[in-house]
């Protein structure tokens, strides 16, 4: 692998072009562009997306922002649809009907991945299709107006987990999907984010795409509408998530856990929560205990990850 250089890499032609209608300050298109940048220029990709912001904003027929082949079916089916395309491609290459290298990549939001699409995702990974499933995780159903998902963090305010005087937002903790996917014992699982110069995400995408067999990437992709931060703060919000260990960067290669980043100074979770309007109701005298509870859960999950990675 050549030394990582964002400047030279961004000279590569974009495979998700500008002109799409994603919001300013949205993490999703940055994630997608970085993942697709990891494709070799001579390789072709078949991209499948689940229903969601990414799909409705990038392929408003007859327009499309995708340079590669693109397919969308229903909300729950991205992994199944891409499985089918990959299976057909494999059969056709065996009989010499297609040439060249085609890579198969599915993108889904957290609603389409953690919730309704989980069944088809699990099936595709278990069957062993040579594909990558990328979840751009913005922690709620943003496309339909910010409803909670099983990825929404505890106590976040959404339209279906509204924070009120009695119930302070969502009452459950976030599902740890990366760990669930690691338990599928597939060749490659990683958790990443658009962080600093994108090196972490780029290198993981490259591994995921070019490792034979199924791979899963879970990528934090903040949403300014749902998280209620100022749009220029996107990269800063991600940094706070990583430095507070709310969203650790790690990978699971053939079952082996590897920690990719350990903050020099682990910052308190409140530093991450503070710039986000969805947690604003927590910053009152009576809700101090809730902040403490969130910190404890982050610590618990972080310490467990350190053990798994042999870093404890």
């Amino acid at each position: 692998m050549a030394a990582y250089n964002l400047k030279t890499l961004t000279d590569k032609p974009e495979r998700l072009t500008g002109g799409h209608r994603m919001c300013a300050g949205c993490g999703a298109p940055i994630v997608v562009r970085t993942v697709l940048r990891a494709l070799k220029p001579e390789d072709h990709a078949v991209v499948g997306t689940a229903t969601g912001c990414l799909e409705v904003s990038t392929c408003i027929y007859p327009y499309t922002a995708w340079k590669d082949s693109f397919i969308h079916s229903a909300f729950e089916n991205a992994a199944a649809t891409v499985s089918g395309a990959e299976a057909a491609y494999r059969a056709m290459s065996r009989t010499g009907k297609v040439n060249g290298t085609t890579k198969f990549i599915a993108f889904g939001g957290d609603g389409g991945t953690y919730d309704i699409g989980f069944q088809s995702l699990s099936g595709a990974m278990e069957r062993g299709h040579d594909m990558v499933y990328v979840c751009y995780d913005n922690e709620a159903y943003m496309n339909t107006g910010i409803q909670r998902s099983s990825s929404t963090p505890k106590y976040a305010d959404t339209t279906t987990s509204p924070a009120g005087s009695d119930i302070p937002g969502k009452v459950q903790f976030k599902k740890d999907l990366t760990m669930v996917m690691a338990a599928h014992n597939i060749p490659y699982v990683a958790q990443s984010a658009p962080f600093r110069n994108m090196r972490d995400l780029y290198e993981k995408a490259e591994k995921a795409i070019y490792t034979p067999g199924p791979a899963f990437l879970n990528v934090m992709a903040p949403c300014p509408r749902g998280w209620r931060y100022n749009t220029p703060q996107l990269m800063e919000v991600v940094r706070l998530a990583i430095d507070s260990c709310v969203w650790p960067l790690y990978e699971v290669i053939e079952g082996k856990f590897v920690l990719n980043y350990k903050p020099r100074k682990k910052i308190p979770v409140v530093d991450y929560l503070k710039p986000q309007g969805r947690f604003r109701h927590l910053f009152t005298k009576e809700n101090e205990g809730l902040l403490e509870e969130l910190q404890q859960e982050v610590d618990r999950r972080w310490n467990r990850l350190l053990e798994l990675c042999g870093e404890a």
Partner: protein
Amino acid sequence: MSKVLMKGNEAIAEAAIRAGCRYFFGYPITPQNEIPAYMAKRMPETGGCFIQAESEVSAINMVYGAAGAGARVMTSSSSPGISLKQEGISYMAAAELPCVIVNMVRGGPGLGGIQPAQSDYFQATKGGGHGDYHLVVLAPSTIQEAADLVIEGFDIADQYRNPVMILGDGILGQMMEPVEFRFSNRRELPPKTWATTGHTGERPRNIINSLIIDPQALEDHVNRIYQKYGHIMKNEVKVECCNCDNADIIVAAYGTTSRIVKSVIYLARQEGIDVGLIRPITLWPFPANEFSRWADRQHVKAFLTVEMSTGQMVEDVRLGVNGKKPVFFYGRTGGMVPEPSAILEEIKKVMRSVMK
């Protein structure tokens, strides 16, 4: 009680709560998101339960569970989501479980669009899922009527132990009108002695089931359900007739489209055409007799069905008219809403062709 200005979706949610619904299981889809959002806020205040499922399939099966326990329970969705619910709906009809299902229809097929449509008429009225069954399908045309039908819908569901569908569309869900929550036609309802509430050894076990392996037993079960449908067809038909008494032509339309036709009645009068409207309020049971009755009248020259679909209810209109008069169709699809002027043009075209 005074009227309040409310969005259709929110009025439907509030009406359900007023009707005693304390269990709501939903999932996000446009254009009905205000229903779950409203329930998420209001249900805890009433001691009720709001759960957002991880898919429509789960939401309808949560409804199955709560209905089996005898609860007043509701779910809502829009066209693609209603397709996912069909398996559960068929099971509930087979197990004779009452519930209210709201479908705020959007344009299809497939993912379609998010604009209003009436293209789920077949799915709603002809079964939708597998097997022999029917839903009672109520089609409001105003927010007030939507609230009234939700309240009555729960009673109909409980009386006949059958799922009831409220068939609206994106316009009815999103628009605002004054609404009053009223209980004009409350019914005497039998106690839910069949519910699985725990028998504590004091009565025989209640069994809720849709699996009947023995062919004769299944046929008996289906026949019994169809006898029940016979009662519903006899007792529950609701229809509005408007300006039919001297009409040259009768337009058939329901929901949003019927509102537009009401404007057309005035426009047509200015051009010397007397237009009547038959507006089915229950799409199933369908008011076929009403069509038959007016088709017998000499002054009625033809029928025109107007829908936001490629022609679905028109098939039931034809069955009702039964060849006595010609039946024409005009429809828009994909979220396009028919303009009054376009409907008037269509009426004139029909009149020219039947006057020849």
